[in-house]
């Protein structure tokens, strides 16, 4: 008996150490970024020496960084709205339409961008938009990036809608509500959290996009990831770490929000 419990203890210890190591591998670098950005030196160093927010102040005062942050913010917001606007009705149809013959094919069609190497799509988008003259515009970026955000929104919303008890909708319908009213007053409130989580994922997908944006931005019109990429390729200043720190904080806040709204979010989006 004691041998069994000793074995159990050993297995438990190995499991805990393994999980700790993996979490350190996953989250550790993010914390290091924030630590490095607080350095008071004029070069990047880890562990940081001294502590100051001077690089944050410098970044926040820089017109260049502020402009690209603004572009990223506008594009990501519009992408999240566009992807939700297209994805929610599509998800509703996929789940609720009774005689949708191509249900399987359509679902696969909406998932395709996830199964396409992003750089290939980026190249195609670039050729298209250079041909019609929409490169380096907000509209051009939103149009292109919606393609990569759409699968997340469709998958997430389809799962939320599937979880809604059909009888609630039927009850409202029996009481005389039109289909639109049923959706608005019954379905939508019930899937609110999933909808917002999907929109947040779309936002983050666009906010971090650094493949499509490589071809569709240009001097004077850079999104934050591309501005950052240019700076990193030039030289490593703590300003880069400060921007990284800001971005990491935004990501942290957004993911906590998505997580609180929708605890099973990860399973929903990736678990299929």
């Amino acid at each position, binding site marked *: 008996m004691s041998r069994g419990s000793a074995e159990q203890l050993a297995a438990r210890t190995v499991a805990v150490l393994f999980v700790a190591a993996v979490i350190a*591998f996953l989250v550790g670098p993010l914390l290091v970024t924030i630590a490095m950005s607080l350095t008071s030196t004029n070069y990047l160093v880890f562990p940081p020496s001294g502590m100051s927010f001077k690089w944050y102040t410098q970044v926040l005062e820089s017109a260049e960084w502020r402009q690209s942050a603004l572009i990223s913010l506008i594009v990501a917001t519009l992408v999240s709205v566009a992807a939700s606007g297209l994805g929610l009705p599509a998800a509703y149809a996929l789940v609720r339409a009774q005689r949708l013959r191509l249900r399987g094919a359509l679902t696969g069609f909406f998932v395709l961008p996830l199964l396409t190497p992003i750089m290939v799509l980026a190249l195609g*988008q670039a050729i298209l938009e250079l041909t019609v003259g929409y490169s380096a515009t907000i509209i051009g970026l939103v149009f292109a990036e919606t393609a990569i955000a759409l699968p997340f929104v469709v998958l997430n919303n389809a799962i939320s809608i599937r979880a809604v008890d059909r009888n609630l909708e039927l009850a409202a319908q029996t009481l005389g509500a039109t289909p639109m009213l049923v959706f608005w007053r019954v379905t939508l409130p019930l899937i609110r959290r999933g909808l917002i989580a999907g929109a947040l994922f779309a936002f983050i997908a666009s906010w971090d996009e650094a493949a499509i944006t490589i071809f569709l931005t240009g001097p004077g019109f850079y999104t934050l990831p591309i501005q*950052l990429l240019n700076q990193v390729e030039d030289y490593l200043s703590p300003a880069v770490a400060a921007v990284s720190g800001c971005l990491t904080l935004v990501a942290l806040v957004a993911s906590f929000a998505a997580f609180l709204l929708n605890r099973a979010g990860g399973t929903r989006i990736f678990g299929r």
Partner: protein
Amino acid sequence: MTLQSSAANPGLRVMTDYPVERRSGSARRFERTGLLCLPAVIYMLVGFVLPLGIMASYSVTNPSLSLSNYDTLFQESLYRILLWNTVRITALVVIATLLIAYPYAYLMSRLHGMKLAIMALAVLLPFLSSTVVRAFTWLTLLSPNGPIPGMLRTLGLSHPPTLVGNSFSVVVGLAQVCMPFLVFPIYSALTLVSDDYLRAAASMGAGPLVAFRRITLPLTKPGIVVGCLLVAVYAMGGYVTPELLGGQGSVILNQDIVTQIQTVVGFGPASAVGVGLLLLSAVCVLFAAKLVGSRSVFGA
């Protein structure tokens, strides 16, 4: 009864979710419901199919109507190296991620509440943080004078191996962000493996390893295959991570696309590379669909 069975077995949902009598009126309304797909379908045609189609046509019409762009791909030894690098790095990322993700997902499936939430959030965080930032942080951590080689020196390794500027750092950087693609599908599949199955196997004399190989592994196979597919496509498609963390010896096809566009402004040759990559990912998709069925690959 239908509701209960649909809750217990998600595979049955599609069939049992609609206990509605079929009147002609409601049938017509449901037809209209299907039309709600239309805006998204139209967008996908213009925003996804059209760009890929234009790219494919550029690969044979730019600069002139010929197969010369593909000739270059097959003739130049550079492209053999780039293709090999792409395949090698993709395979390494898939293997590394799977080796970490499977035990991690297994332990997740044994936990509940806060511990489970923390483990899930840790997997999601890198995916939600900035790609450039992640690559840049690994660059700092792994650089010769950085903290990780420093730690290795303290541990007694006087000449730690070069960790950055080669495939190693690219694989590390990609594995970190690819974790959710494998952890969550495997976790979902594992939660469906009832303890009763394993107990039944044990009662019939199967050791834990046999039970794992004969019960747990087959039940989690769709999750593993679909997850590996998503990781492979992500690894093939990324640009920032290989560009910042890789070196001369680990350049992949993606980087060549960007170089061609940024220096030569030749859409034709770059498009041919793009078509090649697209075919490579299509092979992966078809292979996965053959292994576990297209429903698992495409179905939501």
